[in-house]
């Protein structure tokens, strides 16, 4: 009589909080499946035993479904029981599709760990059964049969670490390269702007004659060299120091110029030059 009463109390408690069944039975436990994988109900995870297979995280409903199946191994667990224990007790409503998707996820998980997916048998329109042929070993309270490898050690997590390490380096490289490029462009633009403002006329002068160690050049923007030749003939320049003479004259201008330099004029070095400037009274004549 007393036993029946206690049994009623337990049933009443279970019906009041049915979710507690799968949780209570699984807390702090490892459930070994066929000796090849361990199911950790409280962590919703399956880990491999003696193999390099990385741990597999199950969705919470799938994990609860598996816990329920394990607790009722060999029995057909009704769909309604799954709905109630896994979802309704947690305030969720799902369709049959969702339920079967979770069962399908469990089969796939079994397959990944080398367990026959046929251990999970669907009884159409009734429920799902976990075959008795699956050997299940439960660890005792606090007893740890297998230690879970840290998830971070799995290859899945490694690539992000590499990215984190290599990203700043590539960013730094790009930044330095772009800065160097902009710096060079700025220098080039500044240099070209400066060069464009300078006059390079002497580089365009044409050679006229070499006489008495003097090298005479004439301005490029005239074709009449009469005045230039008269200057060469009448002005005996001392070319000991200033050997390169740049002559400038125009018709109808009563001015004549000779810029004499030590070396050929160059825009890239210092030039040491003196100027001879002749003012005539008649713009069309040239006289000393």
């Amino acid at each position, binding site marked *: 009589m007393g036993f029946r009463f206690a049994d009623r109390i337990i049933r009443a408690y279970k019906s009041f909080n049915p979710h507690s069944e799968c949780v209570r039975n699984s807390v702090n436990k490892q459930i070994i499946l066929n000796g090849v994988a361990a199911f950790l109900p409280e962590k919703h995870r399956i880990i491999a035993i003696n193999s390099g297979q990385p741990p597999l995280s199950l969705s919470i409903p799938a994990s609860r479904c598996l816990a329920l199946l394990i607790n009722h191994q060999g029995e057909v667990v009704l769909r309604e029981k799954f709905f109630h224990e896994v979802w309704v007790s947690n305030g969720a409503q799902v369709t049959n599709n969702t339920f079967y998707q979770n069962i399908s996820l469990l089969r796939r998980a079994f397959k990944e760990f080398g367990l026959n997916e046929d251990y999970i048998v669907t009884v159409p329109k009734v429920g799902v059964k976990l075959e008795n042929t699956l050997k299940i070993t439960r660890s005792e309270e606090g007893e740890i049969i297998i230690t879970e490898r840290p998830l971070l050690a799995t290859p899945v997590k490694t690539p992000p670490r590499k990215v984190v390490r290599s990203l700043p380096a590539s960013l730094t490289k790009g930044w330095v390269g*772009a800065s160097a*490029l*902009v710096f060079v*462009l*700025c*220098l080039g*633009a*500044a240099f070209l*702007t*400066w060069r464009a*403002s*300078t*006059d*390079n*006329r*002497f580089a365009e002068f044409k050679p006229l004659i070499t006489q008495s160690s003097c090298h005479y050049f004439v301005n490029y923007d005239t074709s009449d060299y009469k005045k230039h030749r008269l200057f060469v003939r009448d002005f005996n320049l001392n070319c000991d120091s200033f050997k390169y003479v*740049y002559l*400038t*004259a*125009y018709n109808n*201008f*009563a*001015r*004549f*110029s000779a*810029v004499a*330099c030590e070396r050929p*004029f160059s*825009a*890239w*070095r*210092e*030039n*040491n*030059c*003196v*100027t*001879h*400037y*002749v*003012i005539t*009274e008649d713009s069309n004549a040239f006289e*000393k």
Partner: protein
Amino acid sequence: MRLKNNTSWLLIGLLLVALSIATVKTWLYWKNTHFSCTGELTLHRKDNVANVTMQYVFNGDTGAVLLRGEVISDNAPAEQVSQNIFFDFQRKGNDYFLVSKSVTDSTGNPTDIPLLKRTFPLFYLEPDAKFFLNIKQLTGSSWLFTTSRSPSLFCSR
């Protein structure tokens, strides 16, 4: 996002390049009215030959030119040249319009030497005389002064 970043970098780069050009142009604009140089000139006019060193100083809108040397003539004794000319000027591009304000010799007296008057333009001898120069920079340290289309002074720092 990447495209947006690249576009931003490109715009910043272009802005910096434009800023460099603007900075150089501003510096050149300022430099064209703030420089000094010295040149050797042999001036031939009729029978007279002046061998002078000319030192020009441009400082904003005022300046000075110092002439040192001598004038030799076939018909007269040589005369020493030691003129100090202070002037105002305006610049338009490479064209400089100068007006002499104060002209003295090394003793501080006005110039009254006929030989110099027959050789040099009035600008170098009297106040309120106008003078025109075209000045172009040849290198980082040299300029070419042109009068009546012909170079009249190679001037270097």
